[in-house]
């Protein structure tokens, strides 16, 4: 028999909610109006926001932003895994070099690193000077000037690798030592244990923060502006400098950044859900499922309490 009782009233909650909503509405209103008034000085306000939203230069900038994000994350993840394995290596030189790399690349600002790569060609004709490159980049850069895109990619990717290394290391450490021992007892060597047993299990811990890093990277690519890479932020800046519609174009860029991070956020949610499978008994509903349930059961009686999965013997009931 369901319990029927008069719920406790919370007038304080209502007051707080109304105050917060009022403040939010005021902020939005002021802002929208400010853009409208910008019309009188430089640009044409919201009209130019809509106008530039699907501008060809902006769209091409978005493409470069996405390219940079994907490539920098690939560099970061591949190098990060290598660094994490080196860090945990019994060879102290490997471990020390990895530590030094993480210390340096995590300890200096990304913008500084991008500028560094961008300006490197001014002082060095050859860049294969013992900086821990992956073979892929070694070939591309020997005795050539680094184009802006490459400078940004190196700056972002190598910096990301330092963070990914720590994320991967945390994942590897999270796998119980008994797993390694069981694999060793079967005659597996170090690399086989890592590839087949430890890393697949570490993924559950590695995936969620990697999603975070990807979302963060999408926005950090705007620093490629420093290397004059024509990505989204640079494009809006170029248009704004020419037309003086500064605020309008910043809004255009913000809309696109928000749209892209929103898509990634949704993607991350589902990937995390996928990797959480098997560790939880039942998965929580997705927002969509919750929404559907809410709509369809709005006028229906509340759902019956969930039955415990294991039936209790009748004498204990």
């Amino acid at each position, binding site marked *: 028999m369901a319990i029927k009782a008069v719920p406790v009233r919370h007038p304080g909650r209502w007051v707080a909610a109304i105050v917060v909503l009022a403040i939010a509405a005021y902020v939005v209103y002021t802002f929208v109006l400010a853009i409208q008034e910008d019309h009188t000085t430089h640009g044409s306000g919201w009209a130019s926001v809509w106008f530039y939203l699907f501008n060809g230069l902006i769209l091409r900038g978005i493409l470069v932003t996405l390219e940079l994000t994907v490539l920098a994350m690939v560099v970061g993840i591949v190098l990060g895994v290598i660094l994490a394995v080196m860090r945990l290596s019994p060879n102290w030189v490997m471990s020390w070099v990895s530590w030094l790399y993480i210390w340096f690349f995590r300890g200096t600002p990304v913008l500084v690193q991008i500028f560094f790569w961008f300006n490197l060609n001014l002082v060095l004709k050859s860049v294969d000077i013992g900086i821990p490159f992956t073979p892929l980049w070694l070939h591309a850069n020997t005795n050539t000037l680094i184009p802006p895109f490459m400078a940004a990619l190196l700056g972002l990717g190598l910096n990301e690798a330092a963070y990914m290394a720590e994320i991967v290391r945390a994942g590897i450490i999270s796998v*119980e030592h*008994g*797993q390694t*021992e*069981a*694999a*060793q*007892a*079967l*005659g*597996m*060597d*170090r690399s*086989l244990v890592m590839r*087949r*047993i430890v890393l*697949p*299990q570490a993924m559950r811990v590695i995936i969620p923060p990697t999603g975070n890093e990807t979302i963060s990277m999408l926005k950090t690519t705007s620093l490629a502006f420093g290397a004059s890479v024509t990505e989204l932020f640079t494009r809006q800046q170029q248009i704004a400098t020419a037309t003086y519609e500064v605020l309008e174009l910043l809004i255009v860029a913000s809309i696109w950044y928000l749209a892209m991070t929103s898509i990634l956020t949704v993607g991350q949610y589902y990937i995390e859900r996928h990797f959480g499978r*098997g560790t939880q008994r039942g998965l929580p509903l997705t927002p969509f499922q919750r929404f559907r349930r809410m709509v369809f059961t709005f006028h229906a009686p509340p759902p019956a309490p969930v039955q415990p999965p294991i039936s209790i013997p009748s004498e204990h009931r």
Partner: protein
Amino acid sequence: MTGNPMVKAEAVHKSFGRLEVLRGIDLEVYPKEVMCMIGPSGSGKSTFLRCINHLEKIDAGRLSVDGELVGYREGGDKLYELHDREVCHKRSEIGMVFQRFNLFPHMTALENVIEAPIRVKRESRALAVERGRKLLDGVGLGEKVNAYPNQLSGGQQQRVAIARALAMQPKLMLFDEPTSALDPELVGDVLDVMRGLAKDGMTMIVVTHEIGFAREVGDSLVFMDGGVVVEAGKPRDILTNPQHERTRSFLSKVL
């Protein structure tokens, strides 16, 4: 018991830092023999077992499996450390079953069993699968080949772990308290599998608290305490007529 010993330990010592865990172990295990090791926790039983497949390195003494030193090669009067590859090869010939099962949770029961034969022994997948199914059948889990470890009970997991070790066709099986983490109800199934193995002539060293199993299945029994073998012999003799005071007081608590 005839022939050369499968495992031979002479004055084996092992320390962790300043803690001396093994203080001179001497014993021999012959082919097809089932040796059970009992003793209080911290007496060095598990450590000794782990030394046999080189999960731990011994500090002093000699330890050999099937006539070959564990972890070293003898050349003249010098010892040469074995390369990782050789250590792995030797481990692949010794099966080990752990107290906490240590199944690979991201693989099904069958995948757990066929992983090492395919990756380490380079068996063909078809052959490994065929033998894997047979082994899982043999431990009574023919129905569970596609189940993941977290869908199995502790007893079932431990039987998969035994099948996984057997898939490498080992010449020696090491059991490190295989039933200590199990619900009392589930112990029997695991012991039945081990009993069957013993009957088939597998050489086994079993660290256990199951005195009944030691008495019934064991060919020999070793009582360890404080890193030394206090008493060794026929299970029946030791269990019914212990010679040492320490053995007597231990048995009085567990029997």
